């Protein structure tokens, strides 16, 4: 084209574009893509984290797959995922719907509701650890026996605490998503329902909830895939304990790799984590159907 008109266009301007993407690409490949392949590779080696890396075939995998710790960790991961989903979703939908109302007091409440979003998992876990302490915590101070249990020292209770704290931290985030979703529902639907004499509860179940379908899928995807990586919260709160009651996969990976210096088996667990995350994301996307909005996984 430029040859025809004789105008030297800034020497094929388009050729510049890939270079603009280069810095992001280099960093992403260097610290995400290569590690992704690296974790596969490392799962076929023996490495203590400091010394030399020696290939060792399927040893790590055999070790991981025959260890009863793996099904247990998978089970705990699944439980945390399922129970925290079941707790968070209804509460987030209700809170989101509540906050989508235009009343002034709700806006004020919203300001407070979203505070947990700002806090680090470490800070939250540490505060709760202190609060739940059987001797020095809130329950002991109030002298209420039911509240001064050994919350983090008994398997069932510790699991419940993990779910509670996870919910406390993440419900605000999901209510925020639902709030946006509810505010996008056309008001005419509610007006029509009102003319038909539908009450508030009826409106919620026959308008709000069905209209939120895609929001529910998005939020659930984030919850489910995100729950695979609840590392910091559980690590600080219980370190996977008592025993291995709250030892989820991510924690299992860390403990085997960085505490027991078994990077090979830890990498194998990481591979399982990656595959699990990927298949869950794809599964949920399938559930959402193709028209769940121009999904961003289009490229995958």
């Amino acid at each position: 084209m430029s040859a025809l008109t004789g105008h030297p266009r800034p020497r094929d301007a388009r050729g510049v574009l890939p270079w603009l993407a280069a810095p992001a690409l280099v960093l992403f490949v260097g610290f995400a893509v290569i590690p992704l392949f690296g974790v596969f590779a490392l799962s076929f080696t023996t490495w203590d984290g400091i010394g030399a890396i020696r290939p060792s075939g399927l040893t790590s995998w055999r070790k991981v797959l025959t260890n009863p710790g793996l099904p247990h960790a998978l089970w705990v991961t699944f439980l945390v995922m399922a129970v925290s989903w079941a707790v968070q979703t209804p509460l987030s939908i209700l809170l989101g719907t509540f906050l989508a109302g235009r009343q002034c007091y709700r806006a004020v409440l919203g300001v407070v509701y979203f505070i947990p979003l700002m806090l680090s998992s470490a800070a939250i876990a540490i505060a709760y650890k202190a609060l739940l302490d059987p001797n020095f915590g809130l329950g002991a101070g109030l002298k209420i026996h039911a509240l001064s249990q050994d919350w983090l020292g008994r398997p069932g209770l510790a699991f419940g605490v993990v779910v509670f704290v996870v919910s406390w931290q993440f419900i605000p985030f999901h209510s925020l998503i639902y709030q946006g979703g509810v505010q996008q529902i056309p008001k005419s639907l509610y007006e029509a329902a009102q003319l038909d004499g539908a009450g508030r509860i009826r409106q919620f179940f026959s308008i709000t909830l069905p209209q939120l379908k895609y929001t529910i899928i998005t939020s659930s995807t984030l919850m489910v895939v995100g729950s695979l990586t609840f590392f910091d919260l559980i690590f600080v709160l219980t370190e996977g304990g008592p025993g291995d009651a709250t030892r989820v996969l991510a924690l299992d990976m860390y403990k085997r790799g960085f505490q027991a210096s078994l990077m090979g088996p830890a990498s194998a667990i990481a591979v399982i984590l990656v595959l699990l995350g990927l298949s869950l994301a794809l599964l949920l996307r399938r559930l959402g159907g193709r028209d769940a909005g121009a999904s961003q996984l289009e490229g995958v």
Partner: protein
Amino acid sequence: MTTTLTKPRRRPQKATQHERQRHPRRAGGRRNWGGGLAGLLWLAVVTVPLYWALITSLKARSGYYASNPLVPSSDPTLDNYRMVIESDFVRYFVNSVVVTAGAVVPAVVFSFMAAYAIVRGWRMRVLRAINGLFLMGLAIPLQATVIPVYLIIIKLHLYDSLLALILPSIAFAIPLSVLVLTNFIRDVPKELFDSMRVDGAGEWTTLWRLAAPLTRPAIITVAIFNALTIWNGFLLPLILTQSPERRTLPLALWTFQGQYGVNVPAVLAAVVLTTLPVLVLYAFGRRQLLSGLTAGFSR
């Protein structure tokens, strides 16, 4: 945090603002007492732990066990805070600032450049492939790649340095940032790009003079989201640093608790102190922060 998968939304703010004007209240006339009550209940769930942490951090260690935990001390003391600050928290704060700023600025600039290239060069196969690669990064729990990241950092002789935290943080921030920014750059009218070209501006000039100013809200949003994630990050500092001088705040908090676990008021003072900077920002830029958190998620 949970930032693994997203769906785009086209400028959510517009629609909601529009509706805000017309609908003072949903569900019509009757007051919703049940809803209000449940709302207050949740308010209690959120505030009681925060309130307890705050007032306990102001109590003297000696009198703390005897007092009612929900009543503020009649004689509040800042001793706990002094102790925390004397435990080198200023240094940890500076470390956190360095890591956050050092990662967010390049992450946003590079993501913006990449997003611009992807939108403008959509016809080029390379750029579509790059975009696909970034999108894949959204579906994968990147934390699962920390072992090789640790290895790479060792090989680069960066172990136990702040740069070791910065580099992977940038990489982990890129997928979502590119996604959000591409969505916004796509909304810039094509005619504006054309007129820039007619004026003889190259891509570099167009990028900074046209696209950046027009998508500034999105850039700020993305920057805030990444800053919050990196500021609160725990796993990378845990595995990539070792010496006390390199600790960032969340890690310092954890080690502090390990050391002074029984001194509950001091531990809580540390918690309050480390969350204070973010809460101050929240007080001033709440809208921005919240929209930053949900950018890219929605229907």
